[in-house]
């Protein structure tokens, strides 16, 4: 098991190094992006001397590989460079924004996971029942409405119609839970159907297996058949899916955060790319990759834990 985790960690580091190279080549060299880096960063209205000075100052006259290692070194030691757009170190902006998104994500998952698992299991337990059909249809509908549409719909209902909730979530006067409700609701609505349907399919499949028949014909109470024999096997597939949702959330929040003016990671990413804020963009990208690889690793480890056939092979 330890070797497995070490291997995974090594693989994770390797992935991040490769991604960082690709990122560097794309953003800081002229290989794909024609035109001068200094122009890109400083804009068209500066003199040639100013550009040359900037290049010298930021080490752009060094050979590419040297610059890459310098950049990587800075990154590893926690110096993420400075943002042009926000006129300050990336560190000061990024972590606060990430924290905001983490709060948003936490609430989405705190509601979505129990609801979708319970509904999925209830539906899958008796495939074809009325409850199953109701849950399945509902989840298909909610999943097929895109976020930008549900943003508008929910805003129309709760902000303009019922006048219950604020329309923006800027948190100008400090943290306000009321402002968090709509973004969480939109993300939850979009995501829960997917996980619920996955759980339902998995549960329904488990219920038709022969070992469930064995459990029933052993005379076990129905509750024990479900809790002890079905659940554990049925949760293997949804677990992996849920871990992938964390990944999805990181990019999925862009629309929602933008719509509700929520100061999170998604909105930051959008701003960085619109303003060609290269240092910020690089930092955001690396964070996103880290989360992606990290959740995947947790998913793999959790999967082996849930599935003894893999654990002891």
């Amino acid at each position, binding site marked *: 098991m330890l*070797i497995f985790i070490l291997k995974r960690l090594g693989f994770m580091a390797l992935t991040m190094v490769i991604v960082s190279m690709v990122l560097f080549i794309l953003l800081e060299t002229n290989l794909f992006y024609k035109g001068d880096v200094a122009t890109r960063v400083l804009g068209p209205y500066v003199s040639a001397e100013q550009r040359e000075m900037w290049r010298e100052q930021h080490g752009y006259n060094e050979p590419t590989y040297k610059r890459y290692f310098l950049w990587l070194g800075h990154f590893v030691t926690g110096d993420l460079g400075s943002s042009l757009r926000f006129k300050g170190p990336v560190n000061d902006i990024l972590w606060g924004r990430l924290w905001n998104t983490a709060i948003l994500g936490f609430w989405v998952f705190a509601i979505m996971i129990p609801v979708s698992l319970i509904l999925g299991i209830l539906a899958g337990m008796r495939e*074809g029942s009325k409850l199953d059909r109701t849950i399945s249809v509902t989840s298909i509908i909610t999943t097929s409405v895109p976020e930008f549409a549900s943003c508008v719909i929910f805003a129309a209902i709760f902000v303009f119609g019922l006048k219950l909730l604020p329309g923006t979530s800027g948190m100008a006067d400090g943290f306000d839970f009321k402002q968090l409700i709509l973004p969480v609701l939109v993300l939850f609505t979009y995501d829960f159907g997917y996980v619920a349907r996955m759980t339902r399919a998995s549960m329904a499949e488990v219920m038709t*297996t*022969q*070992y469930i*028949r*064995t*459990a*029933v*014909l*052993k*005379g*076990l*109470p129905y509750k*024990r058949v479900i809790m*002890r*024999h079905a659940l*554990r*096997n049925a949760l293997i597939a949804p677990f992996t899916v849920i871990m992938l949702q964390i990944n999805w959330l990181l990019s999925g929040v862009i629309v929602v955060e933008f719509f509700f003016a929520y100061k999170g990671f998604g909105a930051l990413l959008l701003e960085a790319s619109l303003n060609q804020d290269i240092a910020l963009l690089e930092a955001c990208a690396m964070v996103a990759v880290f989360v992606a690889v990290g959740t995947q690793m947790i998913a793999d480890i959790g999967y082996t834990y*849930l*599935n*003894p*056939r893999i654990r*002891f*092979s």
Partner: protein
Amino acid sequence: MADSRDEPVLEIKDLNLSYYTRAGEIPAVIDFSLEVMKGETIGLVGESGCGKSTVAMAIMQYMGSNGGIKSGSIKFKGRDLNKMSDEELRRLRGAEISMIYQEPFAALNPSLTIGTQLMEVPITHEHIPEPAAYDRAVQMLSDVKLPDPERVMAAYPHQVSGGQQQRVVIAMALLSQPSLLLLDEPTTALDVTVEAGIVKLIADISRKYGTSQIYISHNLGLILETCDRVFVMYSGEVVEEGTINSLFTWPKHPYTHGLFGCIPLPTADKNAAPLKPIRGQLPLPHERPRGCNFGPRCDFFEGGRCDDKNIAMTSVTGSGATDHRVRCLRWQEIDYGKQVAHGEVKPPMEVGEKVLEINNMQKYYEIHDRSIAALIAGKTVKLVKANEAIDFDARRGETVAIVGESGCGKSTFAKVLMGLETATSGVVRHEGNDISQIAVRQRDTKQIGSLQMVFQSPSDTLNPSHTVGNQIGRVIKKFGVESDKAKIRERVLKLLDVVKLPRDFYFRRPRQLSGGQKQRVGIARAFAGNPSMVIADEPVSALDVSVAAAVTELLMEIQREHKTTLLFISHDLSVVRYLADSIVVMYLGQIMERGSTEEIFSPPYHPYTEALLSAVPIADPEVTKREIVLEGNLPSVMNPPAGCPFVTRCPRKLGKVCEDERPPVQMAADGHAIACHIPLEELRKIESVIKVPQLDERIHVKGTKETATVD
């Protein structure tokens, strides 16, 4: 509770079971009645789709959402199961009635330890504390003769072998000492020597506890060995029932009679007594004919009478057996004595020159071990000896059978012949050319065409999106037999004639065919390139008895016509006895014994061959066998014993020499080789395992029906 001997444990009366589908109601079981007494074992036999498993599920009251009990009663110890509440049923299941399943691996929960799964039975039904339940489970595991029960308790199902899994399932069923045990093909998924052990175990344990059993199987031989009474089912109905002796000696129903004509017996071989398949196929449940379901396939069918109305069971009188009953109007009129029990007698085939010569062929696989221990020891590559020193010949027109249990290397051997793998060393000469090192991609079309294969599972080897005609035609074109389109078509149609399929099957797709028909297409494809040799890898083991007989006969007939050499890979010794001219017995990648069929089936035997012969169930009550039950499991090919591969299970083990040294190959006769340390003189003294009575001692030949009252 009624526990007297007179009252049946289970009493089923006039039971009708149906499935409800979109197409409407489909009767699955019709007019079924059965009584099981205490300690009695009842056999249910029939081919797939005859409703035998449905009966078991109905007893368990577990019919699924679309199945239902239409009428009739199922009384267990006087109480009607059909009228019980869910809670009452739950208390019976696993406690009073329990079940053993066909596939033990699927029947066990993969993510719970075996201990948990066993212990919950007494905990649920008897409310005993966990430590007591643990002790009970361990005790039961040692009762079913599992070595090291504590280790098994802590293991997950995938960590023990198939035979051990089945023992766990049996232990689970017996934990609360049920009065009734339902066994649904309990040994079908197991190797034949393992099967013999399990069958004996079930019999011993039921005797010990006085358990009644309902034993469901498609294997008549197994039913004969295990049961007191037998019910033969066909298309949802019982067509004949009776005591084992009465029914096996004097089958009355044409279907039962036909079934016996379909199974190869140790007395029969392909020339003297060819199998006699039942023509036609099982009707689909919603296409059953009026009157007798078997009518369209029956040789004794009488229009206007047999297809007039439903036929009731009638008692067979005069046979002496009181409870022999049959669902046939003409049973008294039919005289099977005048009928030949088998097909037409044919002269034996002449064998020609050597087509295949194999000399000291070896196939090793490398397995990479990536564990830390292996890295430190520097042993990251392990050799798996899938085939070791294979040596034999096959002549033109000859049928050579390769026999062995799972993991014996017979499939690897076929792969090397086909060029899917290349041999590690040794010579494989086919028509004079050494093909051991030539992979299939490097073989020319003529070579590929002359060496073809019929596969075990026909459904997986036919392309579902191409028509039958296209698939066979493609082969003909590829092998360059014909190139002209019209001529290819002509040849495909001829091949369809050869495998006895209607010509309009040319346009059918695989999904429109039954299992037997698909296998015929598979055979047609194999013979499309006029092969000099065909390898048949368990070609009939996935098919029902009557279908298998037809396919086997077909294969024999084509072989006879084309003078093809047939390499028949099988685990079923009765089939092999029937069709092979010579036999190669393999165990863990090595040849244990080889010789002509006569030589293999009579002493001197290799101890492994002896055990194999004893393990084969024979559906003939007059044949007697010496019982040899092998202890233990097949060792892993990854880790075979150093000396004789069979040493771990051999009942005739000499001692240390068997463990340490490779057994010498002793020649008992010209062409009859035995690899064993025991001297030939000793082996010759061993008496025959299977004793077949002389023809004139047979009950049938002796004549009158009165003598049949052996029970």
